[in-house]
């Protein structure tokens, strides 16, 4: 597969390490009253769609950036590639 890196352009997916569902960016707050349940859901439950899937790839043999790749799990087509840090900020994960 080819991942179109936001800065580096098309790069072979073999240069990347895969982690999975981009929801892993949305780590719950440990202080919330339902933290235990929230972390269980966060760590273990997946939508696992047959279709478009937002997922985390690490450019191990590249610039060491974590990317959020929007990829179709049935056709493997990739429609969008973003820096995970930008996505995280958009999710309000600034300190």
């Amino acid at each position, binding site marked *: 597969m080819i991942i179109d890196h936001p800065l580096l352009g098309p790069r072979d*997916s*073999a240069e990347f390490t895969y982690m*999975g569902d981009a929801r892993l960016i949305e780590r719950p707050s440990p202080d919330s009253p339902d933290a235990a349940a929230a972390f269980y859901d966060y760590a*273990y439950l997946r*939508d*696992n769609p*047959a279709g478009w899937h937002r997922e985390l790839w690490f450019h191990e043999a590249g610039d060491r950036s974590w990317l959020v790749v929007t990829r179709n*799990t049935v056709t493997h087509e990739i429609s969008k590639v973003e820096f995970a840090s930008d996505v995280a900020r958009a999710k309000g994960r600034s300190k």
Partner: protein
Amino acid sequence: MRYSGLRVIKEALSGHKGWTPAWREPDPAAHYDIVIIGGGGHGLATAHYLAQEFGQARVAVIEKGWIGGGNVGRNTTIIRSNYLLDGNEPFYEMSLKLWEGLEQDLNYNAMVSQRGILNLIHSDGQRDAFIRRGNAMILNGADADLLSTADIKKRYPFLNTHDARFPIKGGLAQHRGGTVRHDAVAWGYARSADKHGVDIIQNCEVTGFRIEDGVCKGVETSRGFIGAGKVACAVAGNSSRLMSLANMRLPIESHVLQAFVSEGLKPVLPGVITFGAGHFYCSQSDKGGLVFGGDLDGYNSYAQRGNLPTVEDVCEGAVAIFPMLGRARLLRMWGGIMDMSMDGSPIIDKTHIDGLYFNGGWCYGGFKATPASGFAFAHLLAKDAPHPTAAAYRFDRFEKGLMIDEKGMGNQPNLH
């Protein structure tokens, strides 16, 4: 009709006129006691044991395509019970014992062939871990044998024991392990279940569950509604897809695992060999093809096909440990969709919806588990209590912190 050598001869002499279909092609009835979704190995085995062991006759298996078209028809056919953890080993050992009696049980030759499986050891740490595992196997009543490098060299003189980057330092063998003719497993279970009155309904896709105040009443299908006392899901690979119809999210990701077969070759490998310092395992089918595989591609996929890097990774392992394989040719590659669970172990459990039962999360260990999975699932469906060997395969083990993590990789499915 009963199969036998005599029957084959008789039919041959009378022009094979007498052979009848291996299973009927019935239309779905309005209601069954139990409807099993998924005409794969696990679903068909569940039907067989429900009918034969638990006296359930009003059972249907519904399959969206053709039976045996899923992972039971696209795996590397290995059977073994060389597991480490208490939650797993007794279950897989029961499975192996069921394999050992399968042909007589089904009156179908699935070519269960116990030519042994060998896991190679390449480091001291690995040896420590394998000794612990071998002991766990023996303590659970299975067989295990620690082989020296010399033993291995004697059995497999063509293994790379002369210039290996990661020298072979021994191996853990299970002589009762081996391979089975995978398609025949589905056909044998289907034929037997059909004989016991189970309706096997092909080309019938589930489009939804009918759930009324927390109780599952049946399934909507491409061939209409089918009512059921209990609905049993066994669609590994597509578990998340199916269960989402009941608004369930699972501790499962779907990943592609590629497998490969070489051109037909005269006997090379008696048993199964697993390379411990790379991603490669291999056996040889009775037809002569070397059947081999390695690691997942590593990304979520429902595509039933993979990509080159994994093919290369597997073949690098192949030539590293079997230098003569360089001149054997890879004939065909294919991919199966694996239910990769969050701890690498399966789930056989009730759901929070009454009457809806689930069997999945087999990772790439599903084939060897087929008989025990069917038996344990049938037990759960018939008695509403888990089979003792499958009691740990619960949904809530993640919430409670009772994971069964053989590889110790944690909640990252593609590492199991």
